[in-house]
């Protein structure tokens, strides 16, 4: 079966399953708006004491925050549910059910579950980005929007690969839930541009947990700070991390011995 069609069908079924619980939408919307309000208060507080944070203006910070909310929504809606399911299957030995199916196992474990109501964050994130762009002094051109679209797409792929690699560690370590907690903690650092951090942390947030490529680079694209070479680096990095994630996944599978299902 065509992998795209297969992935779409799985996503559709899991989304339909989630749509039964409509009250969860209001809960997700409430939580998202509350998180947004807190984020806006924090930015307002910082800029009540200064006009510029390491060269970043308030509208530029809004763009960073909007992208952070958007990518965070994608993670919670599509990546986290699948990775938690994978962790559970590895621990309980029930991954056998997936592995015996006649389709690529990496694809299957990546599209089985969805928290569809978390997509409310996607809308909120994009609105915040739009408000930030509208407040910029310099005009945003089609080229900037195009660069933003490309870099955010690359960022999504990168974030998925990082999550997959961390979860794959469960094949060896079994209990990696706290690694996921760690990842969620580190993700909070992406709310601010990585250029404000000291060099050692900036390096870590660029090449180990690459929030720089996923959040700061798309924000730079919209605020006219991005050099063309950065897009090329982001593209090369995405290709490399995708290949590495595939190798790590296959290594993980070779360590799987659960047959208790």
């Amino acid at each position: 079966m065509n992998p795209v069609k297969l992935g779409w069908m799985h996503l559709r079924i899991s989304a339909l399953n989630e749509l039964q619980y409509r009250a969860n939408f209001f809960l997700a919307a409430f939580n998202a708006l509350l998180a947004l309000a807190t984020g806006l208060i924090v930015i307002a507080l910082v800029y009540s004491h200064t006009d510029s944070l390491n060269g970043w203006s308030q509208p530029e910070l809004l763009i960073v925050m909007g992208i952070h909310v958007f990518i965070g929504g994608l993670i919670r809606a599509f990546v986290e549910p699948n990775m938690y399911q994978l962790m559970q299957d590895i621990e309980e030995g029930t991954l056998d059910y997936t592995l015996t199916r006649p389709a690529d196992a990496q694809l299957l474990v990546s599209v089985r579950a969805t928290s569809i109501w978390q997509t409310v964050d996607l809308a909120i994130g994009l609105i915040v980005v739009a408000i930030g762009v509208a407040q910029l002094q310099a005009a945003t051109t089609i080229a900037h929007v195009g660069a933003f679209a490309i870099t955010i797409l690359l960022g999504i792929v990168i974030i998925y690969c990082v999550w997959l690699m961390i979860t794959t560690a469960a094949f060896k370590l079994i209990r990696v839930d706290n690694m996921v907690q760690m990842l969620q903690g580190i993700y909070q650092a992406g709310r601010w541009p990585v250029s404000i951090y000291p060099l050692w942390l900036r390096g870590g947030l660029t090449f180990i947990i690459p929030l720089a490529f996923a959040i700061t680079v798309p924000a730079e694209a919209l605020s006219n700070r991005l050099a063309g070479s950065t897009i090329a680096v982001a593209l090369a990095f995405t290709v490399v991390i995708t290949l590495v994630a595939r190798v790590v996944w296959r290594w993980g599978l070779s360590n799987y011995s659960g047959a208790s299902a």
Partner: protein
Amino acid sequence: MLALAKYYVAAGKLSIQAQIQYRASTYFYLIGFLIEPIVYLVVWRSVAESQGGSIGGYSAEALTAYYIVWTLVRAMNVGFDPNAWGWRIQRGRLNEMLSRPIHPFHRDFAWFGGGKFVWILLWLPMAAGLWIAFRPQISPTLGEGVGFFIAIWLAYAVRFALLWALGMITFWTTRGSAVFEIFIGAELLLSGRLVPLDLMPQWTQNIGAWLPFKWTFQFPIEVVIGRLTGGEILTGLAIQTAWAAALIALIWTFWKPAVSKYTAVGG
């Protein structure tokens, strides 16, 4: 009373052994925690430096000390996540706790309390790394050190009781997470977790003075970084004790009506 003390020691020891067994897992958890203060530290240091080196009476070095101590206070005041009450009730895990002749609060309080000893041990090398990376300005007196030791345990008692009381909402509704999110947002802004309250608008500080949040974060930190007098430290410790007692009394009052709503089977 002696039996209860023995129970606390035994449960605390068990918790220590469990935390040591899963020390790598605990380390990952702590690293996740550590990022939050580093972010605040970098942001507010940048703001202070852009304002000539200090902000709201805090120099860049004092802010550094604030957030490095923050990491220890944060490790100390972790309690049972209110969201986990849903899991506990759904899976019937509460059944085994209810069948024991001791209040589940004691079990949780002793368990998390015991875990702190391992957390502090694991925290030490991280604190050393932060110390080398950021060079804080901190030189507590003996009195401040003793005050801090008491204050962080009282902060743990206050925040633990607060989280436990919040978690009990789950007995009445499965949508408690909305309330928990409000709590987290309020705590972030009114406890000194995000930024010392002196940097917040005056009206925020006024509201914060009437709530328990400040006593779980900012107060213990201020004790050890030398921003309080001896009298202020003693008053603060008394207020922490009063908050802990009030919250525990609240839990005891509502425990019976809460359990009467519980209908899970199995576990």
